[in-house]
């Protein structure tokens, strides 16, 4: 007994500030009010305070778990028993998953495995009794008197009644409103607000889903038919915890009504795609379609605009992150497909969807390569390159004038938007790299410019001219390496390595730039496969971009399959792709986990610097992914 006080003192020093006495009194008074008759005011109060109540319960739970005995808890918080007792009988609290769960955990926290005195024994008894009553008591004796002889068990009965109520309310909501905006005329839409408030505790109740769907999908014709903000918040919360099961159109409606739920959807897509190592273009496409975001964007322009804003800020924070850029391209492609499905007859005006992009570039960039004969590609790209070049030069001229900051920022903005559109329509960048891998040295200029611009949009320190020189140089070297029929000379390979190593003085080319060129050269080159493989391996090994190389090969294969290619060459090319993919798989497997982890981390840490949880979870994922692949490769083939 004498040991107890010092332990408690220790607790007092280390525990968080306990929920104070006034707060419990506040909530107790509120629970008394909530427990009384149901009136519309109570519903509103409930929807306003339910979330706060849950946080308070969480605090209480932490506090209860920190104390060593129930006796101690009851001494510190004498009103606790009364409070929890009242909570049990308030349907708004017990209907909501979160608050019900916390309430039960609080009760378990008060249960003593080995009760040491009468107080604890009584508490145990009371907890058992209250839970038993909650689960098994039947208030409506008259109903049970009929249901029992009819062989309907209580649980089935309650479920049927709930479903019937939901159906009745759904019917009500379905009735159209005829007041047509006349604010003084009463209509049935008043009940919409009340219904949405009532659904605040029922956000995650599966039987209420049809009602929630109906509320969300109701056309907003009447000014009275507003949905409660607390209702939207509750849905958004549940959605982010993936506790919601809604119809497709209801989800779109939720995104439309609640910006935060849309943000959650986009950020979680970014996270799932870009922190998952080993995601192929096919898998990315699958994840993007499954998110339902492209479809929503096609139906509602405002959603597309928000999504793009999120993409823009992500790009700005994570410069050079190839994964994000790939995602944006796949997403935009998916969106354009959905849009075409939605409006097959009409000539789609893209202006509304891309208000900030340079209008002259919009149609040329959004046209897919497959919609154009292959022979026209180079001309098209030359035109695009020229347009973009003119645009950037205009901006730089404005910069040189040293004029008002507004004009330079406008100029910067124009260049950024042009570049962003290019990222969205990066199918043309893929074509650029493909052409660069198959052409001779003549007229590479515009294509190289385009590729350099894609990887290095900003002209910091006016290095672009120098970078273009480097780009040409890199292309020359690669072209040579991939042309020789004998195994590549060692010094040439070394020069390639130098190219890939970061130079302190000069602006270096992005490794992705070089990798992209290398992959296309390796695939289309006429030289023996062994030579190409060796060069590509060097590049991949030096840059550490195994994943990216694999992705580039996959997407190249996809595009070639979809497009038209002369048959004899098609076979040769496909065989080369397959073989190179095999080589890469072996490289990946043999890679030491630590080294590849370091490489992949540098790619993922820039994703969203504020989203710390994403980083820590991605680290865990990366480790496990690599140890798995490592383990798999050790098995005998």
């Amino acid at each position: 007994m004498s040991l107890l006080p010092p332990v408690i003192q220790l607790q007092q020093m280390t525990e968080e500030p306990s929920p104070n006495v006034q707060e419990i009194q506040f909530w107790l008074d509120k629970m008394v009010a909530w427990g009384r008759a149901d009136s519309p005011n109570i519903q509103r109060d409930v929807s306003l305070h339910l979330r706060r109540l849950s946080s308070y319960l969480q605090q209480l739970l932490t506090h209860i778990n920190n104390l060593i005995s129930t006796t101690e808890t009851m001494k510190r918080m004498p009103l606790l028993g009364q409070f929890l007792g009242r909570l049990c009988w308030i349907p708004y609290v017990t209907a909501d998953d979160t608050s019900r769960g916390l309430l039960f955990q609080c009760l378990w926290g008060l249960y003593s495995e080995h009760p040491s005195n009468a107080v604890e024994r009584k508490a145990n008894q009371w907890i058992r009794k209250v839970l038993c009553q909650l689960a098994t008591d039947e208030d409506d004796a008259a109903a049970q008197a009929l249901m029992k002889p009819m062989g309907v068990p209580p649980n089935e009965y309650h479920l049927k009644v709930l479903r019937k109520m939901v159906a009745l309310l759904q019917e009500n909501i379905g009735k159209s409103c005829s007041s047509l905006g006349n604010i003084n005329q009463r209509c049935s839409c008043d009940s919409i607000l009340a219904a949405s408030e009532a659904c605040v505790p029922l956000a995650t109740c599966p039987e209420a889903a049809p009602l929630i769907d109906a509320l969300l999908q109701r056309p907003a014709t009447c000014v009275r038919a507003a949905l409660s903000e607390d209702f939207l918040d509750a849905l958004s919360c549940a959605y982010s915890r993936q506790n919601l099961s809604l119809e497709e159109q209801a989800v779109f409606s939720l995104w439309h009504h609640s910006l935060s739920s849309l943000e959650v959807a986009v950020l979680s897509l970014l996270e799932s795609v870009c922190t998952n190592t080993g995601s192929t273009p096919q898998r990315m496409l699958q994840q993007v379609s499954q998110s339902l975001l492209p479809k929503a964007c096609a139906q509602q322009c405002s959603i597309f605009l928000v999504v793009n804003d999120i993409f823009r800020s992500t790009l700005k924070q994570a410069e050079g992150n190839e994964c994000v850029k790939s995602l944006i391209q796949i997403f935009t492609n998916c969106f354009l497909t959905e849009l075409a499905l939605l409006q097959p007859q009409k000539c789609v005006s893209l202006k509304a969807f891309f208000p900030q992009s340079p209008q002259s570039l919009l149609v040329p960039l959004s046209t897919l390569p497959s919609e154009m004969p292959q022979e026209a590609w180079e001309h098209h790209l030359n035109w695009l390159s020229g347009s973009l070049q003119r645009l950037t030069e205009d901006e730089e001229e404005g910069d040189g004038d040293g004029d008002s900051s507004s004009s330079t920022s406008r100029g910067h903005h124009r260049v950024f938007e042009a570049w962003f559109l290019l990222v969205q329509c990066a199918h043309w960048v893929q074509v650029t790299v493909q052409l660069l891998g198959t052409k001779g040295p003549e007229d590479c200029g515009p294509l190289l410019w385009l590729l350099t611009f894609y990887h290095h949009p900003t002209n910091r320190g006016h290095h672009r001219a120098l970078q273009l020189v480097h780009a040409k140089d890199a292309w020359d070297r690669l072209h040579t390496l991939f042309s020789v029929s004998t195994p590549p000379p060692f010094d040439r390979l070394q020069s390639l390595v130098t190219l890939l190593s970061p130079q302190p003085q000069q602006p270096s080319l992005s490794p992705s730039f070089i990798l992209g060129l290398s992959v296309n050269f390796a695939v289309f080159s006429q030289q023996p496969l062994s030579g190409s493989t060796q060069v590509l391996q060097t590049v991949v090994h030096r840059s550490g971009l195994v994943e990216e190389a694999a992705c580039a090969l996959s997407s190249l294969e996809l595009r070639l399959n979809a497009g038209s290619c002369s048959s004899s060459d098609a076979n040769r090319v496909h065989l080369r792709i397959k073989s190179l993919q095999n080589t890469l798989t072996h490289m990946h497997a043999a890679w030491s986990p630590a080294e590849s982890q370091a490489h992949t981390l540098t790619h993922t840490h820039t994703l969203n610097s504020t989203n710390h949880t994403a980083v820590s979870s991605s680290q865990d994922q990366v480790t496990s992914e690599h140890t798995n692949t490592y383990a798999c490769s050790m098995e005998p083939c």
Partner: protein
Amino acid sequence: MVRVQLVCSPQRLQCPAAEPPEAEKRHMETLLKNVSSTAELLAVSARSGALEQWDGHALSRAFHWARYGEHLFRRFHSDPAVRTAMEKQLQLTNQSLRAALPGYTDVSFCDLSRCQHLLLVGLLNNPELPVSIMRILFGSGSPADTEHSEYVDVTGLCSHIIQCKSACKVLSPLADSSAVGADAEVQGAMLMERLGALMGRGREARRAEHFLDSLLQGCDGASEHFCLVIAAALLTAKNSAAEGAAQDVLQDWLQKTPGVLKLTCSALSASLLAGLAKEHRKFREAYCGVLKTWASDMEYSVHEGEWVQTSTKTCMVTFQKLTEHFLALFEKCPPQRDDVERELNALKLSDGDFDVRGLSVWGDLLSALNT
């Protein structure tokens, strides 16, 4: 000491059609043994200290047995031969359990329909139930739909029940578009189902009528609620000929059974009754009959200046209420107005055709209806 083997799950029930007599007999024996085991399980769960040993698996197996009990009810409640055999078996089991356990309450065949509920009640009222088991039942995560699988997942079973009941309470103030209330609608629909099942293909009314009699008896103090449910049943849309037939039987029973019709007419609101009259011709006629009976039972009280009921045996109805009933009826069934007024006129004529208040209830009724 009663022990229940919870090691194995109930044997799969096979379709008993076209089996040789020997196999059928063995099959029957198995069924009866299972019925007995189920009753024993319920007894054990409510009172035994053996519960201390239970873990998640034991809990799941117990609910699997309970679910099986419910399945037996559904399968055989309309099969008189098997049902009787099972009831006899239960009597025997009850006897032995009563001898072994003090304060034991019998398990009837009807109880099998709510076996899981009874199991839960027994468990939660048993102070020996380990807290770990309770935590499983009240945990989070709704139980998966394991209707057709071996393993019954009962995690969060009680949580789900509580959520459902609470959701009903939250939504009930809003779901007022129903004339009878959502719960009465559900009960009415169940009643229609049951009546339809009892009548079978031959549309035999006898069993249905017996059932209604037993329901009325069982209602005890809640007969008015029963009337509401009957109204709800009559208001359910006639989706099939069978349902129409069942509603017919219900109306016939309503008229035949003494007191129920009158109780219905006095307990329910005028608008609800008018709605019923609109849908069903039989009821409309019966209803008008009741209203006229009420009127004819009235006497003019000079003291109160109003017509009042003479006998206190019948349900309490005021003259004003009577007028309201007629007016509501006319609103929903306009063609009825002419017929009724014609009848009332004839009755007024037979009373002497006076226009002075207080001499003929029919005359006063007519003037009240026409003001």
